[in-house]
């Protein structure tokens, strides 16, 4: 940005070259590139906070948030809470995927399974994760089980639905080819159906984690023992707007990183490696 502003005084050609250089350099640093649009927003935020239109207590500036970030890191609260949140999310996503795939295969492969389970899936998905919290609190108390259950619940349905989609998208020819080459049922499942459905399954996992992330924050606020969601809600109770904002920014950033750097590449890699169905179409 600075280079651009300085170059404006020189000839337009120089200006353009500097701009294209900057763009090229940014292409090599995707993290920076996606950060760039936030610069004006942060400046605007700082300006509004500094102007004092809103009382500082309700509307802290970027520096306050950074200071509170440093402070909470120094005290060791933030790393602990982040770890708690991530452990819950990973555990929930793992269990959810491991139960979702077999369920999805059952529904996708067996007509009876589909007839019986499908209405239940539709209904229980409609009930929604957070509506389970009150009864979970009665059953399991304020522990890891409650949180994990909520996240498993959120991740499960997208994985099941997408597994079913994936199984349905496998062409019959492939199954027949494997059959006529003498593959047994288990081998077809293992070598044709599961790999064929894998791209969809990963998409389902990605969707599910998007929901799970929200559910995690909500349940941390409601259950209130630890985690980033709890930190935000606790700060709200104490009137610490700075920490609330910090929590929101962290949540956004974390998801940005998890989705952009882990889930999307994983999805693309899976589609490239196993997405036979898509390619032959």
């Amino acid at each position, binding site marked *: 940005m600075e280079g651009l502003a300085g170059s404006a005084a020189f000839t337009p050609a120089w200006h353009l070259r500097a701009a294209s250089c900057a763009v090229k350099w940014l292409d090599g640093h995707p993290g920076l590139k*996606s*950060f*760039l*649009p*936030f610069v*004006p*927003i942060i400046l605007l935020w700082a300006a509004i906070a500094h102007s004092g239109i809103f009382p500082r207590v*309700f509307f802290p500036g970027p520096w306050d948030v950074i200071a509170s970030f440093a402070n909470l890191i120094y005290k060791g609260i933030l790393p602990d809470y982040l770890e708690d949140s991530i452990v819950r999310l990973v555990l929930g996503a793992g269990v959810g995927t491991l139960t979702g795939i077999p369920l999805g295969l059952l529904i996708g492969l067996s007509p009876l399974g589909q*007839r*019986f*389970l499908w*209405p*239940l899936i*539709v*209904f*229980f998905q*409609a*009930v*929604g*994760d*957070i*509506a*389970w*919290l*009150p*009864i979970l*609190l*009665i*059953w399991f108390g304020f522990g890891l089980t409650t949180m994990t259950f909520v996240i498993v619940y959120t991740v499960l349905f997208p994985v099941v639905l997408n597994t079913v989609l994936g199984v349905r998208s496998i062409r019959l020819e492939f199954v027949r080819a494997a059959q006529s080459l003498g593959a047994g049922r288990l081998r077809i499942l293992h070598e044709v159906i599961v790999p064929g459905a894998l791209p969809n399954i990963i998409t389902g996992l990605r969707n599910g984690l*998007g929901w799970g*992330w*929200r*559910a995690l*924050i*909500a349940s941390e*606020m*409601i259950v209130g023992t630890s985690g980033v*969601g709890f930190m*935000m*809600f606790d*700060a*709200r109770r104490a*009137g610490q*707007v700075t920490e*609330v*904002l910090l*929590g*929101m920014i962290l*949540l*956004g950033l974390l*998801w*940005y990183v998890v*989705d952009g750097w882990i889930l999307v590449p994983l999805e693309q890699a899976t589609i490239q490696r196993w997405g036979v169905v898509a390619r032959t179409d």
Partner: protein
Amino acid sequence: MGPNAVTRGRASTLRPRVVDAAWFLAPFLVLVVVWAVVVRAFHVPLRLFPSVGDVLQAGLQEIQRGTLLDHIAQSLTRVAVGAILAIVASIPLGIAMSTNRLVAALLTPILRFFAVLAGIAWIPIATLWFGYGFGAITFVIFNAVFFVVTYNTILGVASIPQAVRNAAASLGATPRQILVEVLLPGALPNIVTGIRTGMGYAWRGLIAAEMIATNAGLGYMLFMARDFYRTEVIILGMILIGVIWLAMDRLILAPVERRTIERWGLARRMGT
């Protein structure tokens, strides 16, 4: 998709529908029977899990006292107000973003960032800004719907083939005509899909927000019932939350989505 749906509509007489409905309901009957048998056979304490009769009785009781309908009405009003405000605000923004490249380049990452935060993460700060109650909850719902619909509007405009836009322009359409006769109808199927997804987020966000930040509504009813260990009210509330969402989604949102795609899904069919 279009012609197929039409023939299916004509061919369907009453009997297959009844059979379908029976097949849909059968698993729930089995579930209720299992529930009734297990609760009775194992003497599950009411504190942990209510019997079928208790839940029905709780439902009748709450209806007679008028509280249940009141909670439902409160929840629905909040969702309606938040969603309508969000839809009205997000469609123009989405179209502005998709017709102006600079605006798009600037706002897209920000949109993605806030889309992740949408809904529940705003509860603490919404309650600070608006206080506990209607304002905070409507804000949360607004957020949940706003970003999804904006994003889908952009997708929708992008899905309109350039040829269609060029054709309109070369026939002498003004920018306003292009907006009203090309961009809006072309993006409509995506917009409606976005509204449906956003409503899904909003409904969950509503329940969470009501548990935290209000003194009425279905979420509040559930959470209060937990304080008094009234599991029958909790289960009743959960069933209602599911049934109301299913009714909203299947009876209103899904048909509207299907019809919009049939009526205006021209761009997509031509595009592919």
